[in-house]
Structures are given as C-alpha cells and as structure tokens.
C-alpha cells in the first residue's frame, strides 16, 4: 500500500494559553512552506491541510480513536503538544511506540494509544515522535507565554530537521 510520508498532529486548546502551543507551531510551519494566503484559514476551519505532497498537517482539541485509521496511512507521525511541570524537560523530543493507556477522567487518548489502535485495527502504525513543549500559563487566552513561544520556536527548528 502506498503511504504518505509525514503527518504532523497538533492537539490542544488554542483558547487556553500555552495549551495552544501545537496550533501555533503548525501555523508557523504553514507560513514557512505555503505561499497560499488562505492556507492558515483553511487549516483553522477544517483542522487539516496538505502542506506539501509529502506532508499533511492535522489539528484538533484532542486525539480520538478513529484517528488510528488515518495514522495507518502514513510512514511517519510527529505528535505535537504542550506539557506541564510533571515533565522536567522544557522541550522534549522522543520516539514513541504503540501502547494503550486511558484516563479515568477524560475521553482524551494518548499518542501511544492511537498508535496501538492503528497497529491492532489496521495492521500498521507509523514511526512516531512526540514533540512537546513546557506550558506555563493555561488560562483563557489565545496568546502563548513568552517562555512557551521561545520553546515552540526551538521545537519548530527540530521538526524542520526531521522533515528534511
């Protein structure tokens, strides 16, 4: 089966400050790759954009089970998120493997869980990387904190290298 090369999946709430780090990062990526002035608008409206013939962008408030069907059609997946103080590294980039976990309190799935579903239901999970930046402020705001914005810029550089 012919699979597309990359999917970049950002998730979080752009209206909750640094929880929108992924959305911000993906918009910056669009600015770098696309000359279409409507591209960001399309992405905001639909949560999906074919950035290049080899790279797709995806964004939603959370990850969900049926995403596994899409994941199974890609070779590489990069998950982009923000993290709390529970993780000490301000910028964390790590390879992730399929492995299911759920929370008692929410319908939100982890990237590993989505990969596991892709593997088990559709017999393929992409090689995956998690890129996550520390968030400092999660109040009702559409702006990133200065610290997170700087980390997002670093994450963007790292992702650009991965996409080479």
């Amino acid at each position, binding site marked *: 089966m012919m699979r597309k090369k990359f999917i970049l999946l950002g*998730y979080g*709430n752009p209206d909750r400050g640094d929880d929108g780090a992924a959305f911000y990062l993906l918009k910056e990526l669009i600015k770098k790759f696309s000359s279409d002035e409507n591209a960001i608008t399309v992405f905001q409206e639909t949560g999906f954009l074919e950035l290049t013939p080899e790279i797709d962008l995806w964004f939603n408030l959370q990850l969900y089970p049926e995403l596994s069907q899409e994941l199974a059609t890609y070779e590489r997946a990069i998950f982009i*998120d923000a993290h709390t103080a529970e993780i000490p590294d301000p910028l964390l980039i790590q390879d992730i493997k399929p492995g299911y976990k759920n929370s008692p309190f929410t319908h939100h799935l982890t990237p590993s869980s989505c990969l596991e579903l892709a593997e088990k239901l559709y017999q393929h999970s992409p090689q995956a990387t998690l890129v996550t930046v520390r968030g400092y402020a*999660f109040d009702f705001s559409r702006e990133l904190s200065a610290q997170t914005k700087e980390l997002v810029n670093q994450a963007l550089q790292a992702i650009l290298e991965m996409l080479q």
Partner: protein
Amino acid sequence: MTQKITIEPVTRIEGHAKITINMNDDGSVDHAYMHVNEFRGFEKFCEGRMIFEMPLITPRICGICPVSHHLASAKAGDAVLGVEPPRPASLLRELMHMGQIIQSHGMHFFELAGPDLLLGFDADPAIRNVVGIIQANPALALQAVNLRKYGQEIIKTVGGRKIHPTFAVPGGVNKALTAQDRDSILAGLDASIATIKAGLDLFKGWAAQNADQIAEFAVFPSGYLGLVTPENGLELYDGKIRLVDKAGKQLELFPASNYLDYIAEHVEDWSYLKFPYYKKMGWPDGVYRVGPLGRLNTCEKIDTPLAQEEFVEYRKMNDGKPIENTLHFHYARLIETLFAAERVRMLLDDPDILSKEILNTHHNYQGEGVGVIEAPRGTLFHHYWADKNGQIKKVNLIVATGNNNWAMCNAVDMVAKRYVKGPNVTEGMLNRVEAAVRAHDPCLSCSTHAVGQMPMVVEIRDLQGNLLNVVKRD
C-alpha cells in the same frame, strides 16, 4: 474519628482530580474523597463578551463535549433575545446533539468502561483496555471505532465544521441540511444501531454473570434529575426539568429558566467543584444524580421503539423503581445511545429537516436567559445576563459532571471502603476506585490536554493525615 484533609492543589495543571483515602489503624478505610483541583474561571472570562459570541466561545470549555456547550449556549442566547428558533432549526440542533450522544456514549462504553467489564477489574492492565477487546473480538472493536466516527460525522455534516462549531446561533442555525447530507447520515445508521445492540448484548451478558458484583458496587439511593417530554418521556435536547425522589416519585417539574428556584450549590473546602442539590430538601438530603442513570430514573418511557423495549427490560430489574446501582450507568448509557440513533432516523424522516427556514431574527429582548440541554454526562445549564446592548454581564454554568459531584464522591467512598485494604493499594483495588468514577463518565478535562495532565493520584493517609502511600495512574 476522621481527620479532615485539606488538599492544597500545587498548581491547577497537576492533574484534574485527586482521591484521598483515609485509613483507620486496622487498615480499613475510614473515608475516601474525590477532590477536583481544576480551577475553571470560565464565567469570569465571559463577562464583557457579546451574546452572539457565546456559542463560539463556550465550546472551548471542553474539548470532549463542545457540542453540548455550543447548543446550550445558543439556547441561552435564544432566551436572552426572546426569540423562538424555527422548528427546522430546532430539529437540526437536535440532530447535531444526537451525533454528540452517539459518539460520546459509544466511545465511553467500548473504549473506556467496557474493558473493565468485559475483561475484568483485575485483568492485566496491559490488556484491560480497548486493545484487549480488539484481541477478544476484533470485529466488534472496529465497529466501536466506527460508531464514534459515525457520531462525529453527523456533527461535522450538520454543522459544517469538525472543530469549533459555529452552527447554532441565537435564533436558529446558520446552515441548512441538504438531501445529499441527509442520505449520507442515513446510510450509516443501520450499522451503528447494530453496534449499539451488540454493546447491549455484551453488557447484559456480563451483568448476568456478575450480578453479585453489581449489587455491592456503590449502590445507594438519591434523587434523580433530567429533561423530559410533556408525557415524561426521555428527552435529551429540550423539555422541562423533572426531579424525582429515591422512590421515583415526582418532586418537581419546572421550566429550565426557573432552575435557581430549585437548585443550589454546596461548597466544600477540599474541592473546586461545587455540589448541586435540591433546595427544598437542603444539603445533603437534596442530592440527586444526572446522566444516563439519572435520566432513565427520571423518565417513564422512551419514545423510540427499540430503546423503549430495552427500557422496559431495564426497569424490571428493580420492579419499576429507580435503579440505584452505579455500574448500571453503563447499561443506561447504551439504552440512551440506542435512543439517540433511533431519534436520528426520526429527525431525518421529518419533512422539515431540509427546510431553509432556519433562523428567526425577530427579537423580544429579555436580557437574561437560561439554556439547558442533556449533555452525555448530565444536565448542563448555561445562564446569561446581558445588558441592553447584548454584552454579557454575568454567567452561571452548572456543568453536567458538577451535578454528579456528590454521587462520584459517594461512589468512591463506598467502593474504597468495600475493596481497599491496608496502606498498600493493589492495581485491582485502584481500578475499582477508578471504575466508580468512570461509571459517571466525568468530564473534568476542561479543555486542557497537556501531556502530564491526565494522571489520577490516589493518596493513602492515616487518621493523623500522614501520607502512607501514593499511587499514580498516568
């Protein structure tokens, strides 16, 4: 004697909730608490916004049930502006809402709660999840994923957008349904109903084998509250609010706009989430439950044939009296999912569903309004006060999970006392305490999903408040 533990949340981002279990000297549980550490602040954030913005802003409260907030907000906007949406608009809003019920309930049973029931509370955590179901029954697992996808597709087809819905506005909706879209939704309906019925068979089979467990797992009386039709049928989109007592006898039937006459909120210093209760009976006698268990105890019938058949069988379990067993939230949830699917067909068969008369712009400004809807996890209230220019002055929200706060705390306490022994909490014990919470399908995520924010923390303390053990579930 129980020592009161005051939980100081370190930051608001260190997890949505915490459970504290206070142990007696003999290793038995004295009391268990579920604390919600999530600070909301949403009401303050909305002050100064315009009324027409609210259906756009409020879905941001929660990434799990944005549709419920979107629709409740539009209904509150209807009331503030004194406008009745045209009938086709109400049908379309309800259609979107049924999509939400199907995807949310479907996901909860098959992916979240089902594994406990079908694989066992003490099963290896590595397989006690949807992956275990995939191994046991791959076809059903795929059907379950497609069921959630179907619900989401209804929302997207009706609303026109996958995220951040803009569909419902005060006075109606901004997008009509085409015949093509109607047919595409209908095309997936039979398969979805088959999946839901398979889920019901699965649950009933499990319940028959585990009757003892169901009978001793957080079974307790309470009041029950939910929307109903004029004939006291199950109602998820509109209608009046009905409150019944522990015997199922009606205490109140009132329009949503009068909710403050009947519902007050109690505060405890160990949780940010308030405890709604029935005013006339006071706290704590006036506690009630909402959501699937609450709704099927509040209504007297269901107006769709397959769901009604299941409902009759369901209520026979307690000779027609309210069902009190926490684990029967799952059973009730599946019956509601079936109702929602059948309701989708009824709505799509309605000749008005394709009408272009979807917005009423004639206002009779009231300045204050309440919108109520039955979100998947319970009754959701949006109450707005606005000035004469339509600028919001004040907002009051009672989120669905908040209504069940007392019930979740009580369930955690009962299950901890029954199953937790000594300071060393085994994985199976922890899972049962989680299951007490999970049965209510709580929504505590409040729209932030940062990595590291999902853990459930269980602290075991002695009567002096000394920490004996901490168990974290990532």
